[in-house]
């Protein structure tokens, strides 16, 4: 009934996506919030792109980029000895790309909301930029980090099109829970599809609920 392998693939994918994307999100979100450089609009648009692109389009480009005929796929195969398409590593890379806006945008907004004079005061007190980040900025952007985590985690669990295109629904390797639900429907096994849908709904709701609850408490304490 319940496809445990698919649940495990989904959770692994979501956790790894968050672990890799959150540090990147802090760096990129902060850079986009503070740095004034040429082409900033271009980078912001690039980050937001996966939000509006149909998953099939994103999946198509990734499938092409991962193939052994393409530079990225060929490079990967020469270093690691195996291709990227239809592997867990492949869907992980795809998931990183598809989740860029969900990880970066909330963090960027949080950094933008820190008053400039607060950071200036920190520098005047002799804190290095690194210390400012750790002691002043990160505690303030904490709710932004939490919502980036919640959105990335839940979105990865629900992602369907990109993972299906790049992963091809291979049992215990690239078949996520969302795809297993689709497969069970095709096998006329509505009971299993209903059960797995309920699991997916609960996990997503609990993730978002817990994280928003934490962020809300934080806001009250500091508000």
């Amino acid at each position, binding site marked *: 009934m319940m496809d445990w392998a698919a649940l495990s693939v989904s959770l692994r994918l979501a956790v*790894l996506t968050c672990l890799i994307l959150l540090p990147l999100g802090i760096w990129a979100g902060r850079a986009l919030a503070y740095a004034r450089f040429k082409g900033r609009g271009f980078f912001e648009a690039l980050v937001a792109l996966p939000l509006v692109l149909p998953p099939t389009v994103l999946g198509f480009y990734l499938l092409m980029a991962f193939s052994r005929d393409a530079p990225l796929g060929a490079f990967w195969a020469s270093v690691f000895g195996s291709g990227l398409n*239809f592997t867990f590593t492949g869907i992980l890379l795809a998931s990183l790309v598809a989740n860029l806006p969900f990880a970066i945008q909330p963090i960027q907004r949080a950094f933008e909301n820190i008053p400039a004079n607060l950071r200036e005061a920190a520098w005047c007190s002799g804190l290095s930029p690194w210390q400012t980040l750790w002691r002043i900025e990160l505690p303030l952007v904490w709710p932004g980090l939490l919502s980036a985590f919640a959105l990335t985690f839940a979105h990865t669990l629900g992602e369907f099109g990109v993972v299906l295109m790049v992963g091809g629904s291979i049992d215990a390797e690239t078949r996520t829970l969302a795809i297993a639900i689709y497969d069970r429907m*095709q*096998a006329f096994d509505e009971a299993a599809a209903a059960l797995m849908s309920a699991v997916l709904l609960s996990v997503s709701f609990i993730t978002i609920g817990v994280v928003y609850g934490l962020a809300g408490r934080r806001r009250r304490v500091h508000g």
Partner: protein
Amino acid sequence: MRGLVTASCLWLVTLCLPASVQAQSAPPVVAAASDLQFALTEAAERFEQQSGHALRLNFGSSGNFRRQIAQGAPFELYLSADESYVLALHQEGHVQDEGVIYAIGRLAWLQSPGTAELDEDNPLAAVEQALAAHQAGERQRIALANPEHAPYGVAAKEVLEHAGLWEATADLHILGENVSQAAQYALSDDVSGGLVAYSLALAPALEARSEHLLIPESWHNPLRQRMVLTNQAGEVAEQFYQWLQQDTGRAILSDYGFVVPQ
């Protein structure tokens, strides 16, 4: 709090580790046309009982699998609903040989019970009825697999062409990504029925909620289904490949309405 953080970190690490380990010892992955959805599931269960080896079954449209194998998907055995895909993969060097024909598929009209009167002398009577209703302004649909990449879609198109109904019913077509999805559409609301694999119509999961009519095999080109071992095939995949060609495997396929070659 600190203990909780450490514990969850450890949990995360164990969660992530087995990914590569699992993949190595895992059973072989089989890519099979969706008309085999039920027949092959049963066959794989029997094979596992007899040999102790499990298989990972993957169902979809034969055309999609053909593309995925050419792109390096880790399938060890490929059961196509259209032999031309297997032969093309052989020419490109992605599979071991030309494989063998394991079954010849039949097409059936599938509908929810009582949607239209089933008439053995005119298997497409329901399509004609749907067309008449559509012309009278009623909302009507008939389901088939996508002829662009699904062999049963090609056969369904040939059947409608044979009856001179292909173009007339163009507005009514609802296309499934594969024949299993077409069967699902065929039994949903606002759809009169569909032209799908006979093997699906015979499946226990569908028996209670559907009725069907076999389409004469002369109305479409034979659905010669060929299977082949890919270049990555291991010992278990090879055993299953042989097993399917022997008595038990053949009997299961024929139970699901496939014509099994001698």
